[in-house]
């Protein structure tokens, strides 16, 4: 390792200051990429590096910040050339001055990762890997900086780890509340980066030293890593329409001294700082001692948004995303019904879960693929950290790699093979792993046996470089109906593991009541007993009222709920459930017309006792939807109400389906494939059309957004679809709508095509050869209905 970097954590080390703002003062034009000056004005770049080294900087950031493949392509330059030139200029300055280390500087890609943006996670890794491959051989360390999305930071770290053995420094940009632009928290960033095994972490840009001084105190509590702080020269100010920074070298250096005392040991500057800022800072801080790191190690998991800590208030891990014993869930997995799986996750979040367990193991599906899809979608709609739950090491490896955060890993056992498969993954990607006290001989019957198994897991983890605080032990809940002292053994093991081994614990609670009636009685009582014996986390159903009552009462009684606020909030409004009186007075038709889901469901329940499903559909549901459709067309009611009626109709359909348990209710004479075309990522309009079509009884295959023409064609052929609905929002993407239509016309001429979207008009639709243009969602339903009629 470079001599300077070997002093990391022992002495205060100094980064250089700004490059971009200095280049601006030397004439860099708005929109001109700073890294282009590596080729255009190399002597300027080398000179700036040298002036920082002379001012006392020890690590200089090569001018490669924005030289990622996307930017280089946009600027029409070779990445290899720009990065190599930037690295060489930094090396040259080090040679000239006679000392210094060079960081390959990697900034954000400028892209947003899927599923919110359009950059696949693996593509992000490859993009950063190109920079690493181009520059690492000339670097002493890699600095991944100005990151405002933890997910992107993870991609960059993996690229650095997999393509070099250099020390990796990561600094992220927080706002004054300690949040990333994506909303991620300080503690989440600390947990994820420490889990990934970076050398040092911290913050840069966005804020001045004053604002960072407060944040660094907080960050210091969350990690034992060396902390890096590279602030701007104050908050940006505006004068004459231009941005400037006004914290001078003296004030800057004084605040940096405070920052060192608050916990940082690598410091420098970002936007607006100059060699003089660095000179005064090194003069003031070089002889300061390195601040102490916290001794206490925390057991923390995190999503890209928030962290959850074990060891304080007990943690609830929602268990409902799991096919075991749930036929509806199995059906959703088989049919790729992601929205159903997402809704299970969100409902648990709303019910009070702190983490979500994700188990999609079903013999007939591609488990790794499904796990990654579910994890990807869930992490885009819920801020809760996830517990990846699989027995398949391949699924575990792929999910841990693409997970946006530091996952809870479920699980290892004390069996050699299990630990050998899982621990290396935790070592590489970070994570807290649940250790089940199961040995090669099975589940130890005694508490002592389970404590010994736990010890074996902890000892083996250390051999793999996994710290003790990243292990949670689960001493296994057994059914009390199968063994009189089953619960007592578990509780004793739990108590002893807490006391003797000092690690956190978890239990899957529900199993205790297996085989007994009114299971919640037993489960919730056992839950309380386990909490009283030191349980830190429970895998349970947060939608169970009894379990949540036990949990909230325990927290209130155990001083985990300040002023009982959470308890009060949960139960004050829950007046005894009075069924809304009026709901009984609505007919099914009325309920649908008014868009009342519950009432429609109740009315359908009553009617189905005396009538057939078909009578309900033809006599009540279809007429109601017709009335609503007409009112919408006359502007007597509007889109949200149309959707409410559609959802009420859906509730009635569900009742009929459940009652018949057969296909009798299946209305679809027509299968419709819908998609937002390639290049377009706006899918709100398409989703609205989908809901309406489904609730009018059509069989709808939704291909999602950014769908290539070939994928539409494939689905049409596979599903034998009679109609395709295409959506595009922008004029630029109407072109790919036209391509899709051309392909369909050539390959499946019998299939009809309808189009919609903000920029489309009848004229436009005619020009690109669509059969029908739907100016609103209802129009597409009318067209589909006509088509279905003409087919039957």
């Amino acid at each position, binding site marked *: 390792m470079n001599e300077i970097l070997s002093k990391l954590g022992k002495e205060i080390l100094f980064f250089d200051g700004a490059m971009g703002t200095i280049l601006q003062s030397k004439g860099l034009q*708005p929109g001109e990429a700073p890294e282009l000056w590596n080729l255009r004005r190399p002597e300027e770049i080398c000179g700036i590096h040298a002036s920082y080294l002379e001012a006392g900087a020890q690590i200089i950031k090569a001018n490669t910040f924005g030289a990622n493949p996307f930017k280089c392509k946009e600027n029409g330059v070779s990445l290899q050339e720009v990065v190599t030139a930037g690295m060489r200029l930094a090396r040259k300055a080090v040679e000239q001055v006679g000392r210094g280390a060079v960081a390959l500087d990697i900034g954000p890609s400028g892209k947003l990762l899927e599923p*919110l943006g359009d950059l696949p996670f693996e593509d992000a890794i490859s993009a950063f890997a190109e920079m690493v491959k181009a520059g690492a051989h000339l670097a002493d360390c890699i600095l991944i900086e100005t990151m405002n999305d933890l997910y992107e930071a993870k991609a960059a770290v993996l690229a650095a780890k997999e393509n070099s053995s250099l020390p990796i420094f990561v600094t992220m940009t927080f706002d004054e509340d300690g949040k990333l632009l994506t909303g991620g928290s300080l503690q989440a960033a600390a947990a994820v980066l420490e889990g990934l095994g970076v050398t040092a972490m911290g913050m840069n840009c966005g804020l001045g030293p004053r604002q960072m001084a407060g944040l660094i105190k907080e960050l210091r509590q969350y990690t034992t890593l060396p902390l890096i702080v590279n602030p701007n020269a104050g908050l940006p100010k505006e004068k004459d*329409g231009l941005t400037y920074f006004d914290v001078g070298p003296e004030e800057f250096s004084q605040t940096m001294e405070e920052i060192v005392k608050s916990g940082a040991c690598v410091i420098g500057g970002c936007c607006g700082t100059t060699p003089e800022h660095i000179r005064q800072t090194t003069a003031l801080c070089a002889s300061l001692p390195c601040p102490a790191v916290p001794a206490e190690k925390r057991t923390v998991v995190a999503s890209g948004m928030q962290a959850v800590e074990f060891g304080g208030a007990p943690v609830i891990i929602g268990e409902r995303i799991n096919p075991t014993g749930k036929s509806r869930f199995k059906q959703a997995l088989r049919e790729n019904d992601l929205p159903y799986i997402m809704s299970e996750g969100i409902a648990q979040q709303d019910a009070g879960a702190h983490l979500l367990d994700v188990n999609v193991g079903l013999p007939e599906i591609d488990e790794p693929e499904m796990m990654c899809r579910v994890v990807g979608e869930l992490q885009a709609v819920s801020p809760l950290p996830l517990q990846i739950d699989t027995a398949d090491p391949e699924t575990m490896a792929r999910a841990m790699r693409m997970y946006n955060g530091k996952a809870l890993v479920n699980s290892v056992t004390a069996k050699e093979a299990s630990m050998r498969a899982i621990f290396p993954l935790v070592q590489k990607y970070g994570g807290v792993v649940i250790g089940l006290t199961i040995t090669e001989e099975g589940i130890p019957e005694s508490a002592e046996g389970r404590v010994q198994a736990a010890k074996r897991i902890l000892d083996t983890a250390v051999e793999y470089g996994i710290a003790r605080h990243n292990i949670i032990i689960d001493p296994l809940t057994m059914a009390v109906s199968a063994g009189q002292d089953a619960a007592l053994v578990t509780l004793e093991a739990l108590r002893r593991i807490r006391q003797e081994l000092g690690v956190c614990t978890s239990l899957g609670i529900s199993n205790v009541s297996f085989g007994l009636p009114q299971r919640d009685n037993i489960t919730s009582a056992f839950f309380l007993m386990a909490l009283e014996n030191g349980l830190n986390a429970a895998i349970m159903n947060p939608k169970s009222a009894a379990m949540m009552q036990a949990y909230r009462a325990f927290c209130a009684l155990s001083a985990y709920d300040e002023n009982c606020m959470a308890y009060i909030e949960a139960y004050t409004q829950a007046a005894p459930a009075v069924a809304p009186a009026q709901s009984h007075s609505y007919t099914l038709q009325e309920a649908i017309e008014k868009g009342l889901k519950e009432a429609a469901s109740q009315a359908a329940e009553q009617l189905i006792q005396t009538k057939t499903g078909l009578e309900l559909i033809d006599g009540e549901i279809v007429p109601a939807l017709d009335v609503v459709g007409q009112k919408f067309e006359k502007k007597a009611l509007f889109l949200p*109400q149309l959707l409410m009626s559609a959802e009420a109709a859906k509730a009635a359909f569900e009742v009929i389906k459940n009652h018949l348990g057969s296909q009798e209710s299946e209305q679809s004479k027509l299968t419709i494939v819908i998609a937002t075309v390639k290049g377009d990522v706006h899918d709100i309009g398409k989703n*609205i059309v989908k809901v309406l079509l489904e609730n009018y009884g059509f069989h709808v295959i939704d291909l999602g957004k950014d769908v290539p023409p070939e994928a539409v064609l494939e689905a049409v052929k596979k599903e034998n679809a009679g109609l395709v609905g295409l959506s595009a929002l922008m004029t630029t993407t109407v072109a790919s709508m036209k391509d899709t239509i051309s392909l369909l016309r050539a390959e499946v001429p019998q299939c009809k095509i309808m189009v919609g979207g903000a920029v489309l008009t009848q004229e436009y639709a005619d020009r690109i050869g669509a059969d029908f243009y739907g100016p609103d969602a209802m129009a597409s339903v009318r067209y589909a209905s006509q088509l279905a009629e003409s087919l039957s």
Partner: protein
Amino acid sequence: MELDKQEILRYLSAPHSNETLDGLIDRAQKEVASAARPKHTYRLVNIQVKEPAVILGSTSFESKSLSQHLAGCEKAFLFACTLGPGVDILIKRFTIMDMPLVPVLQACSAAYIEAYADKAQLELEDYAKENGLYLRPRYSPGYGDFPLASQEFFFSALEIPRKLGVALTENYLMVPFKSITAVVGLSPDPSLCHIHRCMVCQAQNCPFRKEDSI
């Protein structure tokens, strides 16, 4: 922030409200307000207008409509703002859990970002007043014949990914969706500065076009 109810209704294609809609709009406004973390940035550039081209800073754009819009200006602000990823996530969430609210959330967030941009623009207004200049209405890539590909310039010149956390897709769409980029001309002559942004648009049959804003 106070949102214009008429504006929200217009986005919903509803000429008037009713009790149900009122309730939904109230709910959606609260959801959007708590999910949004709005941010903005801007930068003053010198411009040259030579119809049909406009030079912003040192980059030239072919656009007849933009050159007409900026006629008489020698400076302009490049401006960008976003509501942040929270609103996209909110809409995704309701798409799964409660679809009827989705178009209302969409309408409220559209009204929200317009209102936020207007408010943020007061800072530009201050600069204009001090210098005896007037602001032209915001003009965005994709309006008229101002190519959407010009987004790349705004993203570099304003460092939008770094400052606002907004990214461009391959086809120049912005994510998070509720984001605006625009150029705001500075003119010594107030006469072209009160035209509503709708009326400079070529899309004569746009359902959102305001009839009464000439």
